[in-house]
Every structure is written in structure tokens, then in C-alpha cells.
């Protein structure tokens, strides 16, 4: 029997999609970790003159001459006879872009003060901004907010899965090991949580708290509520495998030497389930991301001015708004890509973990 890891690598070569998934995730997580460095602007730093500005045009030619590094021009807007915003570039004032520039003062990971960013406008002028993906109503850079928003959307899955793991392992492992009455009771109990559609249960638990909580409180509340919903399914999977593994000889051997039940479960049975557990975890992370996005979308999740991909999309619910500023929909693409990447990865892992294939 090949090691799981070796099998995994072999399988991955056969799954180009999984590789794409891994690449996307690595990319996003890298951005998330170094968010303050990568985002050219602070998440709440808006310039009102840039209200709903379209993505900044990057020019490689200024006054018909090729320039490197490329330049951008300051934007301003005025209204035409239809009260439509007309954005004007002031081509008399070029500003060079540069790598590793001085920018807003922020704290990397919230502790280390830095003022250099991956890229930006040389000199960090206030009146000329590089908005790669356009801006929102109050002139904040959408790209920066998406980068900061990834902190919420990408971590919520892991933290939630950690809690689910804990609960699921314990309950599932114990249930499968002991079997019989204990198994029945525990599993029926776990099934309770799968009886109500997840969104209904999510909102019901959310209603326990006032609609508007601080973002940090909501963040942890969401993690707790979502774990509540997800753990049962996970427990059942672990239980299934635990049942089979318990019947094996080495478990009987361990019992005969007098090892305690708990020790057997934790040290012998659960490690065997690890490969499946990882698959289940990978495939359930999207549920957390979507759960948080859904809550923030309808206003019960992360609040302004903090950003999460879900609450960035909540402005898109006003259809007439996005007709003129469609870039508001871009955070949805990030959610989509992340979910897709996890699904690809999970699929590949599942194939790898399946000894039949």
C-alpha cells in the first residue's frame, strides 16, 4: 500500500485542475498574508473625487513617447447633461508607477509598521491614485478592499474547520469505536443538526444577537455558528471509518495490552481517518466562505468600514448602481475562484485517498 502522500503526488499530476486550484489558492493566501503590503491603499482610505471611478488606465505612452515605468493621470469627474459622471484624466500631470514604493502607513499583520507597498504611485500623491479595479461610492480602492477582505473570507474557513474537526473527530471517533447504543445515540444526535436547511439554521442562530454587532464579534460568531452547522456531517464520516477501523486486529491488540479507550481512539484510530478527514475538510471550507459571504451580503455579517468579499457585494444588490459601475461585481469572482479552487483540490484529494482508484 502506497503512502498517502506518494499517491497524492501521482494523482495530482493527473489532475491539472487541482494544480490550477493549488496555484490559485497559494496566490490568494499569499496576498492575504501580506495584505497590508500588497494593497496600495488602506481599506478605509477614500478620496471622494474618485467616487465610483473606473479602473485606472495605465499608460505606457505619455505625449507620444514610450515611458517606463508607465504613468497614470489624476482623475476627476464632472456631470454631463444627463447627470452622468464623466471621468477626465488630467494628462498634463503624469505620475510614475513604481514597485516597492512609499505609501500609506499601515501595520503589517496589525503589528509591524510599514510604509512601503508592493506597488503604487511614486510619491504616493493624494490626488492621483492607482485604482486597479475601480472604486466604490466613497472613492475607496476596490482592489485594496478586496485584498483586505480576503483576510476574513480566507481565514474563516480554516478557523471554522478547526472547530468542526475537533467536534467531529471526538464524536465520530467515540461513536465508531464503541458502537452499539452509544453509536446510535450520538449519531441520532448528530443527525438533528442536519434536519434543518443550513441557511435557516444560520439565520436562526444569528437572530440571537442584535443585527448590528462589531465586525470582530460577528467574525467569531459566524465561525461558531457555521461550525455548529457543519460538524454533524463531518462526525458521521469519521464515525463510518472509525467503525471499520475498530474491527481491525491492531486495535484488538492495543486493547489487550490494556491501553485506555481514549488513548486508542486518539492515537490509533483517528490517524487512520486523517486522509479522509482532510478531504472532507477541504470540501467543506467553501461552505464557510459562502456562509460568511451570504450573511455579509444581507447585512448581518461583517460591517462597514471593514471589508469582506460578501459585504463588498452587498452594494451590487442595487441593480441600477451596477449598471454604471459593473466592477462592483468583481469580489464575487474572487469568491467563485476560491470556492472553485477548493473544489478542484478536494476532488483530487478524494481521488488520491480512494484506494480503489
Amino acid at each position, binding site marked *: 500500500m502506497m503512502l498517502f502522500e506518494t499517491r497524492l503526488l501521482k494523482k495530482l499530476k493527473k489532475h491539472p485542475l487541482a494544480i490550477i486550484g493549488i496555484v490559485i489558492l497559494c496566490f490568494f493566501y499569499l496576498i492575504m498574508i501580506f495584505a497590508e503590503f500588497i494593497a496600495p491603499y488602506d481599506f478605509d482610505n*477614500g478620496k471622494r473625487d474618485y467616487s465610483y471611478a473606473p*479602473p485606472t488606465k495605465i499608460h505606457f505612452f505619455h505625449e507620444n513617447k514610450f515611458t517606463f515605468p508607465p504613468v497614470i493621470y489624476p482623475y476627476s469627474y464632472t*456631470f*454631463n*447633461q444627463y447627470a452622468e459622471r464623466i471621468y477626465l484624466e488630467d494628462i498634463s500631470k503624469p505620475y510614475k508607477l513604481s514597485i516597492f514604493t512609499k505609501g500609506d502607513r499601515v501595520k503589517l499583520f496589525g503589528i509591524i509598521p510599514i510604509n512601503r507597498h508592493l506597488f503604487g504611485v511614486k510619491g504616493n500623491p493624494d490626488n492621483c491614485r492607482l485604482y486597479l479595479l475601480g472604486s466604490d461610492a*466613497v472613492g475607496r480602492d476596490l482592489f485594496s478592499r478586496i485584498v483586505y477582505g480576503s483576510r476574513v473570507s480566507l481565514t474563516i474557513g480554516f478557523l471554522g474547520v478547526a472547530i468542526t474537526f475537533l467536534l467531529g473527530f471526538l464524536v465520530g471517533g467515540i461513536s465508531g469505536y464503541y458502537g452499539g447504543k452509544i453509536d446510535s445515540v450520538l449519531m441520532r444526535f448528530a443527525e438533528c443538526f442536519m434536519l434543518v436547511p443550513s441557511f435557516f439554521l444560520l439565520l436562526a442562530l444569528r437572530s440571537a444577537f442584535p443585527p448590528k454587532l462589531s465586525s470582530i464579534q460577528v467574525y467569531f460568531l459566524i465561525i461558531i455558528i457555521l461550525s455548529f452547522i457543519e460538524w454533524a456531517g463531518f462526525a458521521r464520516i469519521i464515525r463510518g471509518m472509525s467503525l471499520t477501523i475498530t474491527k481491525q486486529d491492531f486495535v484488538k491488540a492495543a486493547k489487550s495490552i490494556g491501553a485506555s479507550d481514549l488513548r486508542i481512539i486518539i492515537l490509533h484510530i483517528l490517524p487512520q481517518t486523517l486522509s479522509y478527514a482532510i478531504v472532507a475538510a477541504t470540501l467543506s471550507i467553501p461552505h464557510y466562505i459562502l456562509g460568511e459571504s451570504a450573511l455579509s451580503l444581507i447585512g448581518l455579517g461583517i460591517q462597514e468600514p471593514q471589508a469582506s468579499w460578501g459585504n463588498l457585494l452587498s452594494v451590487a444588490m442595487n*441593480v*441600477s448602481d451596477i449598471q454604471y459601475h459593473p*466592477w462592483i461585481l*468583481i469580489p464575487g469572482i474572487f469568491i467563485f475562484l476560491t470556492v472553485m479552487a477548493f473544489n478542484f483540490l478536494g476532488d483530487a484529494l478524494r481521488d488520491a485517498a480512494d484506494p480503489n482508484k
Partner: protein
Amino acid sequence: MKETRFNIIKIILATSFFAFFYSCTQTQKISGELEQIDYTAIQKKAENFVPKIGTYGGEIILSSFSDPKSFNPITSTEVTTSEFTSYMYEGLIKINPVTLKPEPGLAEKWEVSNDGLTWIFYIRKNVFWSDSTPFSAYDVEFTFNSLVLNDSINPNSSRDMFVIEGKKPKVSIIDSMTVKFVLPIPFAPFLRAMAQEILPKHKYEKYVKSGNFSNSLGIQTPPDSMVGTGPFLLESFISSQKVTFRRNPLYWQKDSAGNRLPYLSRVIYLIVLDQNAELLRFKRGEIDYLRAKGEDYPTLKKDETKGNYTVYRLGPTSGSYFIIFNQNTSIDPKTKKPYVDFVKQSWFRNPKFRKAVAHALDKESMIRIVMNGLGYPQWGPMSPSEGFFYNPNVEKYPYDITKAKQLLAEAGFSDKNGDGFIEDSAGNTVEFSFYTNSGNIERGKLAEIARKDMEQLGFKVHFQLLEFNSLIQKIDNPPYAWDAIMLGLTGGVEPHFGKNVWHSTGTLHMWFPRQKAPSTLWEARIDTIFDTAVKILDENKRKTLYDEWQKIAADQLPLIYTVLKEQIFCISNRFGNINPSPNGGILHNLERIYVSSKNKN
């Protein structure tokens, strides 16, 4: 190999996706500038408008955001109901929607004694209720003595307007076509208040006698039993869907050729719960009239010819929109502590604090960002569209962060510990909650900007959206658990009808309601102004007093004003006799509007 072909497809799809987004972001070419509207010219034209003789028939489809809760003009407090009852019931006086002056309505003329206390109204002849009963002075006497002034009918929004310093006017019949009112004290707004709807005695007397009047004229009442003198009568009401009015064939008003008005056969209101849907329906022609927001103006204006409608901009709306700080000094009898803690009182009650906030509000951005440039900064309690009493000469607070910080520094506020937030002279960080009502996207956006503006000053602001009713509860009732709120009020032509807000004893004196004695000199002065001006019959003398009131309000800023939006009306070109007016909108002469066979004048 097959996978690579696969991937190529994916890349193509992804690129086309992004290409689409980027194509939408092409900067448009300028084709013109936002038109400067000459409102005085529009007003003049409206005043000199001569209606054409119209043709009978057709209907107009309007929209409403909520169901009416009743059809009872006496007991109802909400705007939707008043809009509907104004079609069915009229008053002795009619306020001309264009000039805002009182005109003969169901009374064709009136006399007033020299002391302003005795009024005699001569009822118009040949006016009939829709069930053919003649209209008479008995109906007027019944409406006032048995309904408006009746203490056992509650709630009763009309009564508040006619009870002056606790005393009621005496209403009596002189003959079947003449009514006499004797006021206890001179009451300047009296004539305006006589736009009060008159209800038929023969239908409702028995309800009053049995004590059931508050339940009559409800949404369950059969429409054919509703009898009025107005141009339209209720035909049917389907909850959450539609309210239909039909033409009153016995309406007394006639056009210049002697034809009985109104021309339209029906006025239909669709109950629309979704603003986006309403806009789309208007553009498709399913609704004939729309009151639009600034941000929808571009899409509406562009399709004017195609959609066969016209978009009118008619100046600032009436009403006001402001930030209030809680200035309540009273003590909670249960806990013996003040409702608003002393530290916060010291900030909010300091005029320099409020003026600093006023200077920090970026009104230009609010107008440009939220309303697409179609709005106006507001400086005082009245709006230019409210006519005669409006005083444009009040203190203005241009957007000036430096000046704001300077004012705060003068009042002892500064960042003593370098944490980015400012503290007062005692070292307390200026931290407070800031609420506005949820459910209104425009207001939410304005509040966001205001919050950011206040944070620029170094305040720690906790912003929350609350449901409208919860917000009102907090303001109206102990323990007055709020710090700063952004809210709006409807306005009116007659300042005295805002007394509940401005008098220190008022229930709507939001920053410190129901005071036993005025807590500041300026509130005392405003009290005096309101108590005095109501009794003066000379309009110009009243104006001097109300001008002073507006100056005080703008100087002391109990309400820190923000912006007024532009009135934007859209109406299908099918209709004739449309007379746009900054004061009245475009449906003010609904009884003269008709479906014209040609397009537009």
C-alpha cells in the same frame, strides 16, 4: 493534450469575461453639461399657466410604496392616507399649489373681524356630495364640533392644529350656507388650517354617536359607501396591489367652457414595494408618473424620447435633513442619573462643538456622490420651495476642516495622548454612537459620508443602522438612549405647524423634548417667537419673527442641516395640462389633467 485544449477554452472564457467588464469602464465622451435650471422662470410660467379645455376619458397610473392604513383623514397620521383622502374630501379653503396662497375652496368667500377672532365663511352654492345630498354648513359644523374638536376621537391629528393654548374655537351655524368661527385668540395660520377636510354629516353622525368613528373609513370599508365632494372617489382597494379612484360625476369645479371637471375617468395607484422594479415599469410605460432619485436621473433622461415621457427638475424638495445631538439634561427618576451622561452633555450642548461638526460636513460630496449632483446644501430649517417665510440669509458653514478643528481647539478639545482621537479638556475621548434608519439606501450613503466627516475631526464614531420605528422610540421616550442621529422631517409652508419641533415643550423637540422650562436662552427666545407670531395677523410682521427664528436655528444648530435633494418628476407625454411648478410638482392639478390625443404641447 485534451486538457490543454480544455484550458485554452477556460482562458478564452475568462478573458472575454474581463473584457466585458473593462469595456463597460470606457470613459464616456463629454457631450454637454448639466443644465442650469431657471427656477424663477418656471415658477412664473406656472403662475401664469392657462389650462386648456381637455377631453374626457382615460386613466393615469401612479405608484405608492405602501398600503394606506386607513382612509380616515381625521384619525390618520400617515402621508399615504392623506394623499388618498385629499382626492375625496376637500376643505373650505384650498391652498393653491403653485402660489401656496389660500384660495376659495368649498367656501366661496369669507369675512374676518378686525380683531381677527370672528370668521364667517359663505359656503359655495350648488355643491353636492357624491350621493347627491347637498353640501351645507351643517357638514362643516359637524366636522368641526363632532370630529376635529371631539376629545373622544383618538388619535386625532387635526385637533392639534385647532386647539390654541388649550382652548377650542366655537363653531356655529348662521344659516344653511353660512358658518361662523370664533377663535379664543388671534391665530394667524387659521385660514391655512381651514383646508381641513370636511366630512358628510349624514353619513358619519351615527358613527360618532355610537363611538365607532375611529373604525369607520378603514381599509375594510366598502368603497361605494364613501361619500365625498372631491374630484375622485375610491373605487377599489386591493391590499399590497392597487388602489383605484374613479371620477366623481357630481364634482362642482368646472373648466372655463363650463365642462365639469375632472377629465380623467380613473386614477390608479400601484403599490410598488421595490424601487428598482418601479423604475423599470415606468420606463416600459406601465406606470405614467415617477418621482425619481438623483442617481436614476441619467438613465431616465437618456430615454426621454424613446420612452415618450418628460423629465422635470423642479428645485429643492421641502423638508429638512439633519444630524441631531442629544442635549437632554433631565434626570431619570428611577436611577437618579441623567439620561445623557454629563461628559456627553458637555460636548453636545457646546455650540462650538456643533458648529465644528457643521464645518466638517462635506455637503458637496454628499450631493455629487449620492445624488449625482442633483441636490442643494441646506443651512436652515426651511427650504426655498416652502415659499414666503423662507429666509435665505442665515449663517452658512462651508466645508472647512481647519476651521472645524480650530473651533474644537477653542472649546478645549485636542488629541492629548496621540492616539489619533481627540479628548475633551477633562481627558475623555470623544466617543459616541451615530444612528440613522435602515431601509433607505440614499440616507445610508449620506450617513456614511457624515460619519467619515466626523471621524476626520478625531471623533470615535460608532455607526449603526436602526429600524425606523426603533429609532423614533428612542428619540420620543425615556431613557432617550441615543447620542447622535441623522434624520429628516417633512416641511411645510406655515412655520407654526412645526411648533412641536421648535417649542421647548414640544414632543418633537428632538434634542430635548418636553422641557418644563427652556434650558437655554435661545430656546426661550424661539418659544417666544412661536407664541407671539401665531397671534399676529400681519404676514410681514410674522415674517420678521420667523426670519429671526431661522437665524437662531442656523446659529445654534440644534439640528445640523445637510442637503436637500432635487425634485425630479417624470410623466408620460400622453397627458395635457401638465404644469410643472417648483412648489407643487406636476400632479397638483390632477382634476385638469387629461389624456391628449397629440404628444405634448
